[in-house]
């Protein structure tokens, strides 16, 4: 039984106590009445049934024994009487008195000794309906206790045939008087001659008849032992009743001996030769408990006997006991409910009070206390609970104090933190302003560089142009001078001026303007790098590096440089600018190779933490440690004499990477080589 969770403790205790008791009681009653399966304990109901069955079986066995005894008595009586010397002599005398062996006057008084003898025989335990002597040769009745029968010939009857013709020593049959319809049990027995001659033929036949109704009445009487419904029923082999029945048949008719055939199972089984005990329906259609027995009257004649009692009557006491038990059970259940209620209340009260106290504590009332009235476990529980609440109350107060202190400290710290945040915010604002100023200045600077480089190129171009014009004019001057006649001194002096003063001056101007032109071009390129709009897209770096290296193919072959390129991860960026970065780096690597050993340039890339890092490594002359930071500065050149350039390449690289949120770093060992590491975001933000 699942007790609802919402049910209170008292209810659960009551439900448990009552439920357990009721179940146990019902189980006990069930076991008491129905028994325990698989054991020899049958239970009262079954035992009562068994007792009744056993009683019926015992009564049936007794009745059967009595019936067989009764038949045996009839047979023995006939046997003893037929074998008595007196009868045999008397019969022999009668049969021979008439010469022909037949009585001439068929009256009993003619044979007083036989009459007296038969009277003596008939006055025994058995009441005979008739006793007759039949002539063994003719079949005529020569003597009978019923005078009217004397002289009747019965040679055609089965009894006479079986005993006299077939020499069966005795023969039992059920006869029915055709006139009166009365049923009788007939025993026929041979009467041998008076002399003791073995194997002699019979001279006559003794035939006795009894009324089964009358004679078997005391046997068939059910008596008090079988109750008011008890009955003993006797049927022949064909299930025809031999005696009257206690109750009418199903259809209300009254059974008549040898006329009424009953088909109830017990009678049917008994007539068929079976014996047993059964619960069935009887001839009246009433449920009965019955013991059925088969009675062998002779080898050829058998009866069925049923000893039965109505089931209702048999089980009535038991049913009354069941009702009584149920009534008592109900009363006990009510008593149990009441007892359970008081017990549950008594047991549950301290727990309920404890529960209330616990609920109050839970609600925040630490002053609540549980009862400590009893000295049992519940009292101890209450005391423990109260101690526990007391401790909690102390902890609570301590905690409150601690919280107050901590709260003050936190308030102070919070105020300090607020101040610091404000200061930092100011600093951040200052930094942002500075950054904005810086960006503004950078933009101004870039503007200046652009404007300067752009505007300075015009006069520079004029200078270069006019310088070329001066050279051509100088050449014309030389031609004119050659044509004119001058003295040797004059010509020598003019040549010296032209050769030693003007030519070097013009060469110096030409050299200076070309250098300035390159510087301006570099500045312009740098400026454009910072100003150009970024076109960001995924870049296949393998393709990009392949194209770049293709432009350097002539140089690498000419100088015998080995370029090793590993598969490179892709990245995001402006493909033109990124191409510029790696062109500059490859150009630098080739430019600063060590001429004393075969040049090797290695390009590789890795992915890490959202960045792609590419490395352009060479085995060149390397960068002295003191110059490694300076090479990133504008116009700085490590070997200005040996190598061409304006010192803007790495500056432009750094600028481009800055715009891509990337960075450039350098690792180099002088005389061994350098590594330029380019870090780019894998995805553009």
């Amino acid at each position, binding site marked *: 039984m699942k007790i609802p969770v919402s049910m209170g403790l008292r209810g659960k205790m009551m439900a448990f106590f009552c439920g357990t008791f009721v179940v146990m009681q019902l189980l006990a009653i069930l076991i008491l009445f129905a028994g325990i399966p698989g054991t*020899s304990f049958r239970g009262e109901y079954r035992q009562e049934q068994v007792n009744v069955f056993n009683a019926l079986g015992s009564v049936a066995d007794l009745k059967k024994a009595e019936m067989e005894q009764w038949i045996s008595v009839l*047979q023995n009586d006939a046997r003893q009487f037929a074998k008595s010397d007196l009868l045999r002599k008397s019969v022999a005398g009668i049969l021979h008195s008439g010469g022909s062996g037949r009585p001439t006057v068929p009256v009993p008084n003619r044979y007083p000794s036989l009459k007296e003898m038969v009277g003596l025989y008939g006055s025994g335990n058995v009441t005979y309906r008739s006793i007759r002597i039949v002539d063994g040769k003719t079949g005529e009745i020569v003597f009978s206790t019923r005078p009217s029968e004397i002289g009747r010939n019965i040679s055609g009857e089965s009894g006479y045939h079986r005993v006299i013709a077939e020499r069966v020593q*005795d023969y039992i049959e059920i006869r029915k008087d055709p006139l009166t319809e009365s049923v009788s049990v007939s025993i026929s027995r041979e009467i041998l001659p008076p002399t003791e001659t073995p194997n002699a033929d019979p001279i006559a036949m003794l035939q006795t008849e009894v009324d089964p109704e009358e004679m078997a009445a005391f046997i068939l009487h059910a008596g008090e032992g079988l109750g008011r419904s008890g009955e003993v029923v006797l049927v022949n082999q064909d299930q025809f009743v031999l005696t009257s029945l206690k109750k009418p048949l199903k259809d209300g008719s009254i059974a008549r001996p040898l006329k009424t055939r009953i088909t109830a199972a017990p009678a049917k089984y008994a007539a068929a030769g079976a014996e*047993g005990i059964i619960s069935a329906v009887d001839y009246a259609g009433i449920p009965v408990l019955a013991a059925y027995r088969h009675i062998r009257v002779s080898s050829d004649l058998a009866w069925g006997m049923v000893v039965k009692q109505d089931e209702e009557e048999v089980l009535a006491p038991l049913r009354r006991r069941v009702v009584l038990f149920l009534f008592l059970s109900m009363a006990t259940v009510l008593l149990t409910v009441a007892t359970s209620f008081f017990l549950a209340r008594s047991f549950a009260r301290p727990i309920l009070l404890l529960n209330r106290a616990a609920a109050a504590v839970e609600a925040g009332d630490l002053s609540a206390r549980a009862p400590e009235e009893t000295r049992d476990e519940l009292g101890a529980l209450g005391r423990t609970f109260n101690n526990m609440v007391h401790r909690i109350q102390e902890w609570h107060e301590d905690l409150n104090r601690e919280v107050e202190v901590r709260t003050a400290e936190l308030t102070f710290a919070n105020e300090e933190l607020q101040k610091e945040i404000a200061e930092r915010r100011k600093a951040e604002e200052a930094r942002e302003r500075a950054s904005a100023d810086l960006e503004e200045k950078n933009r101004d600077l870039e503007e200046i560089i652009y404007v300067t480089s752009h505007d300075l190129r015009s006069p520079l171009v004029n200078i270069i142009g006019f310088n070329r014009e001066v050279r051509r004019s100088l050449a014309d001057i030389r031609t004119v001078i050659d044509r004119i006649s001058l003295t040797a001194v004059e010509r020598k002096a003019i040549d010296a001026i032209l050769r030693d003063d003007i030519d070097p001056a013009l060469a110096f101007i030409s050299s200076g303007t070309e250098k300035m032109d390159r510087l301006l071009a570099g500045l312009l390129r740098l400026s454009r790098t910072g100003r150009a709009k970024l076109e960001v897209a995924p870049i296949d770096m393998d393709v990009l590096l392949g194209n770049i290296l293709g432009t350097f193919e002539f140089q690498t072959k000419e100088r015998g440089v080995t370029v090793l390129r590993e598969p490179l991860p892709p990245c995001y960026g402006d493909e033109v600018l990124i191409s510029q970065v790696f062109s500059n780096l490859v150009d630098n690597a080739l430019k600063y190779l060590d001429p004393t050993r075969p040049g090797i340039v290695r390009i590789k890339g890795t992915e890490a933490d959202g960045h792609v890092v590419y490395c352009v490594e060479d085995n060149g002359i390397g960068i002295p440690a003191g110059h490694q930071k300076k090479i990133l500065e504008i116009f700085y050149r490590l070997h200005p004499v040996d190598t061409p350039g304006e010192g803007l390449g790495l500056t432009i690289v750094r600028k481009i990477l800055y715009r891509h949120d990337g960075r450039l770093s350098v690792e180099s060992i002088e005389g061994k080589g350098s590594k330029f590491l380019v870090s780019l975001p894998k995805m553009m933000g």
Partner: protein
Amino acid sequence: MLRSTRPIFRTPSAFLLLIALSATLLFPACTAKGPAAPAVPADLTKHPVYSKYDFGDGSKVINFATQPLAAPAGTVGEAMAHDLTLKRDLDRLGFTIRFHPFLKGSDLNFFMDRGKIDVAIAGDMPTLLMAAKSAIRVVGVTSIGYGAVVLKNGTLVQDLKGKRIGNAPGSSAHFTILEALRRSGMRESDLTLVPMDVDDMIDALSRGEIDGFSAWEPAPSAAVQKVPGTRKIFRMTSSSYVYFSRSFAEKNPEAARRITASMIRSVRWMRADFRNLLTASGWTVAAEEALRSGEHQSSIEQIASVTKENLLNLSGVPLIPPNHLRAEGDLQNKFLFLKSKGMIPATDSWETVLSCFDTELARSLLSSPAEHRLDTFRFSPDTP
């Protein structure tokens, strides 16, 4: 008159082997739910007891099969074995008669089928099995008794549910237990039938190996007395008969008449004086002891009582009662049962069985008692 040397089981294991062999061979018949092919009988010519029997080698030796374990059939057989009048009658006809005890009817039928046995006393089931083949001529009844189902700690047939019940498959006792179940609305599957020989059932019940058994008398009565708490919960009529092999009866009608006369004489002798009955019962116990290594399941008094109740008290025996042969009677029901179990071919007819019952021979003998000396009692205890 000669009697076979009664060999005994030399060791218990030989006897157990016999039981196990019999149970194994008969088990299919027990468990069969419907008609099935008849079980192939064991070769009983190698049986430890029967193999020692001397059946003679000439036509002048009459071999008579008895069953000392069954009463009153065994009692009648033993009385006939001691009937000096029969011996003298057969001597005059040039015959020697030999009596051979068998454990059960199916065993003696085995030898009758092979021409070794000429006359037999057996229960209704073995009689029907032979009559269905028209192989015999039945001349008398030697028992009108009961087969009974006994159960320890039980009253009703319903109490058999779930129990282990000893049973001789294909016997009248098998029919009895099935009839008990049928009449109580139960089925064979409601219990466990344990195949075994009747002579082992009481011991098995005592040892608790079975809860009850179905058998013919005197085993049920002996069990009720020997095993506390045991009851007969159901009984069903069961008969036994005297029958000749058809070939013997046709070839030797006079010898058959003399043997039938001895049957009547033996019954009359036992009926004439209770002391005669006790003597014949004593011979039956001795025959059983010889057959079962000195053991017997019933006392002399028990055998006498069963013989009196199931034979001598009944007027008309040993004539075959007409009601045994009536339609839908006990015998015909058993015939149908054997057919349903496949032990008799479905094509065999009841009319064939009826034709084997000779009700006239014994009647004709009774009509001339002097000629056949039916009341001349010369029984010798020393004869066998």
